[in-house]
C-alpha cells in the first residue's frame, strides 16, 4: 500500500437485521486531504464513518489505517477522532476538562496537559471559555470544543459527522470556511460526512457519493458535478437541480432528436452522428444543467417563460415546454419577462444521457 494512503476500506459490509446499511464498499483516503462522504439520509455514510472510527464493526471487509489492519481494534487504539453531529461535549465538565479528557486518559503530566490544551484553545479561540461548563455553551462553541477535543490528541484522521447541520445558514457558512482553513493549515486528514451537496462540493478535495449503502461515484467535486455517472448523482448534486427530459433518441440528418410522449424535440443540430449512432432508438433520460441552457433566437426548442426568480447576480428562468418545465440561468440584467415566447439551446458538450431503466450514464464524454 502506498505511503500516500492513510485509510483503506476493503469490501466493507454492514447489516442491521435485514437492512444492508453498507454494501461492499471500498475506497482509499489520502494523507492530508479532506474527503467527503455525500449521500441522502439513510444511505450508510454515517455507518461507514462509525466503522472507520471503530464504533461499529463491519460484518465483512477490512479497515486499514496507515497500513495496519485495525478491523478488530477498539476505537481507542485506532488513533482517529470523531466530531459528532451533536458534538457530544460533556455537559458536566468545563471546556478545559473537555479538551483535556483524552490527555488525562493518556495520563500525561499536568503541565503537558495544560500546555497542549492552551495551544489548541488558542487556535480555536476558546481561551475565554475554558472555565465554562460544557452544558452552557452555544452551538458554535460546542463545535469548537468538539474539534479541539479531537485535535489535542493529534489523531491520524479526524472524522466529522454532519457537523454543521445544527447551525443556521449564516453561521454554517462561517464554520465551513473556518473548518476548511483549519484543515489546510494543520494539514490534517479529514473525513467529512454530509447530506448537503453544496457543502460537499465546496469543502472536498475528493468526495464519494453513496446511495442505499453503495458507493456510486468517487472523484473530485468537479468530476462529480460535471460528469455524474448516474442519474441519481446528477439530480442530487447541483442547485438549481438539473433539467431532465425523458424519451427515445433518434438521429435525423445531422440533428439529435428526442421523441417524448408529447412530441419531437430537436436537442442538437450539426452533431457528430458517429458519437450518437449507437443510441438511436434507446429510451433515455437527458440531463442538462440550468447553466448549460441558453435562450437564443436560433434555439431549437420553443417554450414560454412561466416565471423568473432572482438569485443574486443570476436569475433562474422557468421555461414551460409543453408539459415540461426547464430551468435555466440567465444574467440578472437579461431582458426576459414572464409570458414571453422563447427558444432555447442546449449546450451539447454538457449533455448527459442516462439509460432510462438503469439510470446509468450511457454516453461517456
Amino acid at each position, binding site marked *: 500500500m502506498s505511503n500516500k494512503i492513510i485509510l483503506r476500506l476493503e469490501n466493507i459490509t454492514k447489516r442491521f437485521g435485514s437492512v444492508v446499511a453498507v454494501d461492499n464498499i471500498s475506497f482509499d483516503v489520502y494523507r492530508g486531504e479532506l474527503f467527503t462522504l455525500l449521500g441522502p439520509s439513510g444511505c450508510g455514510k454515517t455507518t461507514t464513518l462509525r466503522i472507520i472510527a471503530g464504533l461499529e464493526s463491519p460484518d465483512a471487509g477490512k479497515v486499514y489505517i496507515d497500513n495496519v489492519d485495525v478491523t478488530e481494534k477498539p476505537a*481507542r487504539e485506532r488513533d482517529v477522532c470523531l466530531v459528532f453531529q451533536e458534538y457530544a461535549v*460533556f455537559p458536566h465538565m468545563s471546556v478545559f476538562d473537555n479538551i483535556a479528557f483524552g490527555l488525562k486518559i493518556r495520563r500525561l503530566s499536568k503541565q503537558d496537559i495544560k500546555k497542549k490544551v492552551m495551544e489548541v484553545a488558542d487556535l480555536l479561540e476558546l481561551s475565554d471559555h475554558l472555565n465554562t461548563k460544557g*452544558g452552557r455553551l452555544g452551538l458554535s462553541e460546542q463545535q469548537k470544543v468538539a474539534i479541539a477535543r479531537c485535535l489535542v490528541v493529534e489523531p491520524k484522521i479526524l472524522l466529522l459527522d454532519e457537523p454543521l447541520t445544527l447551525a443556521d445558514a449564516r453561521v454554517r457558512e462561517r464554520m465551513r470556511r473556518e473548518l476548511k482553513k483549519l484543515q489546510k493549515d494543520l494539514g490534517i486528514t479529514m473525513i467529512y460526512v454530509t447530506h448537503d451537496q453544496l457543502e460537499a462540493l465546496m469543502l472536498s478535495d475528493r468526495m464519494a457519493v453513496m446511495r442505499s449503502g453503495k458507493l456510486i461515484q468517487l472523484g473530485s467535486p468537479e468530476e462529480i458535478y460535471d460528469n455524474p455517472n448516474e442519474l441519481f448523482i446528477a439530480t442530487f448534486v447541483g442547485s438549481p437541480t438539473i433539467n431532465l427530459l425523458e424519451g427515445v433518441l433518434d438521429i435525423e440528418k445531422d440533428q439529435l432528436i428526442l421523441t417524448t410522449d408529447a412530441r419531437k424535440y430537436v436537442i442538437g443540430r450539426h452533431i457528430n452522428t458517429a458519437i450518437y449512432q449507437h443510441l438511436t432508438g434507446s429510451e433515455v433520460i437527458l440531463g442538462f444543467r440550468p447553466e448549460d441552457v441558453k435562450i437564443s433566437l436560433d434555439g431549437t426548442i420553443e417554450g414560454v417563460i412561466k416565471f423568473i426568480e432572482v438569485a443574486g447576480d443570476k436569475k433562474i428562468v422557468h421555461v414551460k415546454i409543453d408539459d415540461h418545465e426547464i430551468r435555466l440561468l440567465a444574467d440578472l440584467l437579461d431582458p426576459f419577462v414572464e409570458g414571453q415566447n422563447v427558444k432555447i439551446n442546449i449546450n451539447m458538450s454538457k449533455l448527459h444521457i442516462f439509460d432510462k431503466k438503469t439510470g446509468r450514464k450511457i454516453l461517456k464524454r
Partner: protein
Amino acid sequence: MVRNYISNILLWLILVVAIIWTLIPVIWMISLSFKPYGEWRTPSLLPQKPTLDNYIMLFWPKSASVFIAYTALLEPITDSLIRSLIVSVLATLIAVIIGFFTAYGASRYNSPGPFTLFFTLLTRMLPPATFVTPIVIYYTTLNLLDNIIGLVLLYSATTVTYAIWILKGFIDAIPVEWEEAALIEGAKPLQVIFRVVIPLARPGLVVSGLFVFLMSWTELLFALVLTRINITLPVQISMYVTAVGALWGVQAAAALLGSLIPMIVGYLIQRHLITGFTFGLVRG
C-alpha cells in the same frame, strides 16, 4: 378579571386545605412529643405544660421516673437508631450500586431482556406479607434471624428493583454519543462509566438512593418478624405501645426523631435533586 380573581381564591383555598391535611398529623406529632403524660389525650394543639420527659424516656429510660412502670421494658433508643442507620446506609449502597450496573446494562445492551426487567417489578406487586413465611424459613436455615446483615440483604434485594427502574430512566436520557466520544478519546469502558456516565447519572443515583434509604428506614413488617433484640428504629417506635399501656408522647418523640434523619439527608442532597435536570443540553 373577576373570574380570574375567583379562580385564584379557589386555588388558594384548595392549596390551604391540602397543606393542612398533610401537615396536621405532623404538627400533632410535634406537639404531642412535648406534652406531659396527663395531656396526651387532650385535644389542645399546644402543650399546656411543655416537658422534655418524653425525650428523656427515649434516651435514658431507666432514669425516667415519670414512666417508672415501663422502664423495665424498654432499651434506650440510641441502639436501634444506630442499627437503623447502618442497615439503611448499607442497603442503599448495595441496591444503588447493583441497580446502577443492571440499569446500565438494560439501557445500553438491553441485557437482562425486557421480561426479566419487568419480572423484577412483578415481585414488588405482591404484598410483602406474602414473603414473610418463606423468608423466616430461609433465615432460620441461614442463621440470619435477629441479625442486621439479614435485614441489609433483604432490604437491598427488595429495593433494588426501584433503583433499577429509576436509574434506567436517567441512563436512557444520557445520549450514547457522550460515551462514544469518550471511547474515541481513548477511554476504556469502565473509564467511560466512571468519568462520563456516573457524573451524568448523579441525580438519578441521588434520587434512587434517597428512595431506597427511605424504604429501608421506614420498613416495619420484616424487621418486626426477623429481629428480637437487634431491633431497628421502626420496631422500637412500635414498642412504645405496650401491653401495659400506650406511651403516646414518647412514641411521638421517637417518631419525630425518626423523621429528622431523612429530613437532614433530604436537605443535604436537595442541590442534586434540583440541578439534576438542568444539563442545559438541547437536542435536535
